[in-house]
């Protein structure tokens, strides 16, 4: 259904992006070590920019096309569709893939084995093709095929460092999660196909009574893949593992794609089930609290970021829940606000999380550790990484005037307006309680990210490696730094021009809310850009005229040591001690225990050795998942007994199976 030149060229752009990535895959497979990493990175960038261009061309019109006519997946041809909902996600893919492409050469050149280089390029290209085609898929079968390609290639990326036990475990956990989610999605798709007789995603409507099963299955699948409580346990294992540059695409899109699926199915498909709405809000709330609490206690920088993803996925899920709730009560303004909040926060979070993961990758490259207790004082040696990570942290804590403040504000506003809307009293009470909970989560995430920035980049170095850290491999900023700068600029730009960004999302919002009169720019009335400008002028004038800028003679001296002489860096606050007071308050959930051991003759006044240890046992893993895994172990151990190795017994099994099949065939 190609009707005019722009749509045709947009479709062509997407196809050529995929073709270029496919070409990259072939070239690396054939050419091996003869291929320069710069050339492959160029191919990756070209594909990313073409995707971005295609998204720009088709941002307010929907195109259906089939450029892969010769391919069909048995039941249906591999149709593609670009509609207003997939455009924002394609745009995000374009930006993140560009950043990853810019960062790739310096990462690949630092790898020592040819095998690892090939592994990186091949899987990255497959991953990108999978991501793009999932977003373009017009029918269930195509969606599932590309979803699988995306999932499996990303599992390969998680296992990039597969000689390490940690990476093996992560890949295994991630594979389990993707298997479960694919199984549930397949079940949901089959159910909808059975109900409607069509495979086309846009023809499925979730307003009917029968569709509630499919909606519930989808919710479970999406919660598993996005990492919502209690299915989030794979996330802190898997997110830190993909190699530096791809971790941007991985962290920014893997969770978001499943949110995209949920939006396309339940919001655009007009789901009207209160139960689903309540489940989404409840799971989202627990997830937000749980995620941010564990993020705060984490001492591994990348795991901290991964847990913060759990938090944000929770917040997005609550917004989606409210959107469904508002649809049920016909509260149109709230539904629009909720959809805008969910969509905008998904995109912003993807952008910011990619930026932060690149920052963490840069820290890991320079110091060779992600343990906060070995970092510190990196601001001096790594100014660019520090600045970008700082901007990312400001944004993810939803500080004005950043982009996430706008989306978090929309979430707040959704709940706030629900509190005086025409809804049952319990829902209104819930909505005001949610405002309080969101404030609580916000304060926790502030604690979490001041810890991340403050402990990793400020203060004095806590290890030799941190003191000698070097920001880039070349004399100037290299690709990894440049990629961070690109994403940081994108965050600031969106933050200071929110009305323009929301106008850009308006077609997608119209698609989600089925309301043709949604105007994006009026949703967010706070003039953030102007405030930032006024703030900037005020700050610089106070800095220059009160503090005196650089002209004033500022004496540089040691940090105050109470006159005891130079303090060792061990006297500094560590990541764990920073979050310890909060950990104490929530020690029941965190299972936090502290043991103190003091030994010596007169141990009260003259201790010879003091030993303090803190323990945290992840409660969900030990109390819920370990028994389940134990059950599976026991089951498989029991099933082994069937496998006696005797041919006679196996023939008996074959005979019994045949009997069963004949019985089933004749009776059903």
């Amino acid at each position, binding site marked *: 259904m190609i009707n005019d030149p722009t749509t045709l060229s947009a479709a062509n752009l997407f196809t050529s992006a995929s073709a270029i990535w496919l070409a990259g895959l072939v070239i690396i497979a054939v050419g091996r070590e003869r291929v320069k990493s710069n050339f492959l990175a160029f191919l990756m960038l070209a594909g990313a920019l073409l995707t971005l261009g295609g998204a720009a061309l088709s941002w307010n019109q929907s195109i259906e096309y089939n450029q892969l006519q010769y391919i069909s997946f048995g039941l249906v041809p591999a149709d593609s569709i670009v509609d207003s909902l997939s455009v924002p996600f394609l745009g995000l893919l374009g930006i993140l893939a560009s950043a990853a492409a810019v960062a790739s050469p310096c990462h690949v050149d630092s790898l020592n084995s040819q095998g690892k280089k090939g592994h990186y390029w091949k899987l990255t290209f497959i991953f990108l093709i999978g991501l793009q085609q999932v977003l373009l898929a017009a029918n269930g079968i195509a969606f599932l095929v590309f979803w699988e390609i995306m999932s499996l290639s990303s599992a390969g990326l998680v296992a990039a460092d597969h000689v390490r036990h940690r990476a093996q475990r992560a890949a295994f956990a991630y594979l389990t999660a993707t298997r479960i989610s694919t199984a549930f999605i397949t079940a949901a798709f089959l159910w909808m196909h059975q109900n409607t007789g069509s495979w086309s995603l846009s023809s499925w409507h979730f307003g009917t009574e029968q569709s509630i099963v499919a909606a519930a299955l989808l919710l479970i699948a999406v919660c598993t893949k996005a990492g919502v409580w209690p299915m989030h346990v794979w996330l802190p294992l898997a997110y830190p593992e993909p190699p530096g540059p791809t971790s941007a695409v991985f962290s920014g899109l893997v969770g978001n794609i499943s949110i995209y699926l949920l939006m396309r199915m339940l919001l655009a498909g007009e789901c009207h089930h209160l139960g689903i709405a309540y489940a989404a809000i409840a799971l989202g709330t627990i997830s937000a609290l749980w995620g941010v609490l564990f993020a705060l206690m984490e001492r591994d920088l990348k795991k901290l970021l991964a847990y913060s993803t759990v938090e944000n996925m929770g917040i997005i899920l609550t917004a989606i829940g409210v959107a469904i709730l508002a649809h049920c009560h016909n509260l149109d303004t709230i539904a629009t606000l909720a959809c805008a909040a969910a969509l905008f926060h998904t995109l912003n979070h993807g952008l910011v999380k990619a930026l932060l993961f690149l920052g963490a990758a840069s820290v890991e490259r320079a110091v060779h550790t992600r343990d906060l207790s070995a970092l*510190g*004082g990196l*601001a*001096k040696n790594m100014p660019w990484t*520090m600045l970008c990570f*700082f901007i990312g942290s*400001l944004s993810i804590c*939803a*500080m*004005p005037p950043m982009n996430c*403040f706008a989306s978090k*504000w929309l979430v707040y*506003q959704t709940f*706030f307006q629900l*509190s*005086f809307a*025409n809804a049952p009293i319990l829902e*209104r*009470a819930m909505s*005001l309680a949610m405002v*309080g909970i969101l*404030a609580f989560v*916000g*304060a926790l995430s*502030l604690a979490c990210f*001041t810890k991340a*920035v*403050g402990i990793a*980049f*400020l*203060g*004095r170095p806590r290890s030799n490696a941190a003191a000698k850290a070097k920001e880039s491999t070349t004399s100037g900023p290299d690709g990894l730094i440049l990629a961070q700068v690109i994403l940081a600029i994108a965050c600031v730009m969106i933050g200071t021009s929110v009305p323009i960004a929301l106008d850009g999302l308006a077609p997608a919002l119209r698609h989600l809310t089925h309301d043709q009169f949604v105007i994006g720019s009026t949703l967010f009335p*706070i003039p953030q850009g102007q405030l930032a400008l006024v*703030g900037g002028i*005020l*700050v*610089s004038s*106070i*800095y220059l005229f*009160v*503090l005196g800028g650089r002209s*004033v003679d*500022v*004496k*540089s*001296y*040691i*940090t*105050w040591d109470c006159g005891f002489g130079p*303090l060792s860096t061990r*006297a*500094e*606050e560590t990541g764990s001690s*920073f*979050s*310890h*007071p*909060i950990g*104490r*308050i929530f020690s029941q959930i965190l299972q936090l225990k502290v043991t103190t051991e003091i030994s010596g003759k007169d141990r009260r006044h003259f201790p010879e050795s003091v030993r303090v240890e803190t323990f945290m046992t992840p409660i969900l893993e030990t109390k819920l998942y370990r028994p389940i895994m134990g059950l599976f172990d026991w089951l498989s151990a029991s099933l082994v007994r069937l496998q006696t190795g005797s041919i006679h017994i196996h023939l008996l099994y074959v005979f019994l199976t045949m009997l069963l099949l004949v019985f089933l065939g004749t009776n059903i």
Partner: protein
Amino acid sequence: MIAINTEAILETLAFVATFLLLPPLLVGIIRKTKARFQNRIGAPLLQPYFDLMKLMSKGETISKHTSWIFRSTAAINASLLIILAFLAPWTSLRPFNLGADLFLVIYLLALTRFFTVLSALDAGSAFGGFGASREVTLALLVEPAVILCLAAIGSVSQTSDLGIAFSFNNVSLINQPGLWFIAGCGLFLASLVELSRMPADDPTTHLELTMVHEAMILENSAANLALVEYSHFLKILILLGISSQCLLHAIPFFWHTSQLILALASILSIMILAASIAIIESVAVKLRWTKLPEFIAYSVAMSIFCVFIALSKNLN
């Protein structure tokens, strides 16, 4: 040609002069009252101004371990609080309505905390670190109470714009003395914690076991310290101003009186609240760190009462 309105200009001048000059006086009032309670004459009422001026003329010393965060924090926090003084409804007299969104106000306050905490961690001293750690813990407990008190008021007036909710011609809030009073008390208790006053923190001590705010600004000196102190004074003005506005709204008399009396009452009530802080600090003791969540629970409980009142008001 813009018509010049003398009255508006005078109002603006009065407003700017108030928020620039009043904050140190409030601290002077607190210190003087405390001194009188301890049978001392105490420093002059205007001593905070002299202190600030003296600090401005001193030479600055900073730790060699600090980064750009340290010095910019002073400037950024001062500017943020000046912006907040224009936005937040801390007095009835506001010459321009800039749309004081509830969540924007809360998050701007959080932004100042973000910078304060980072600058405390910047020098790498043990003091800054634990001060920062305590600050984020307290903030975490107080934040829900503050936002719920304000959201309850906003919910009754059906807008998140505090400028509209706090104006004295908003009919939806006219007969709600209970809501206003409880919100005012809840906010006042929360401000005690946010402003590092007595039950949570002792502002006059430098004992590392007890301090929160002072531990964080131990490395600042001269103009930098003056800015940090001034920002803190401004924060006292804004937070006490918001709670005093709530309390004023609870008294029916102020709904039907003239602008001038209202403006004077706003200023006076802030001073009374400042004096009552001093009284609390004289008769109460600093709580043990582990007992603080119980104290903050009073504030949270009041905010939950506000929510109940708001929900019952909007019953349909």
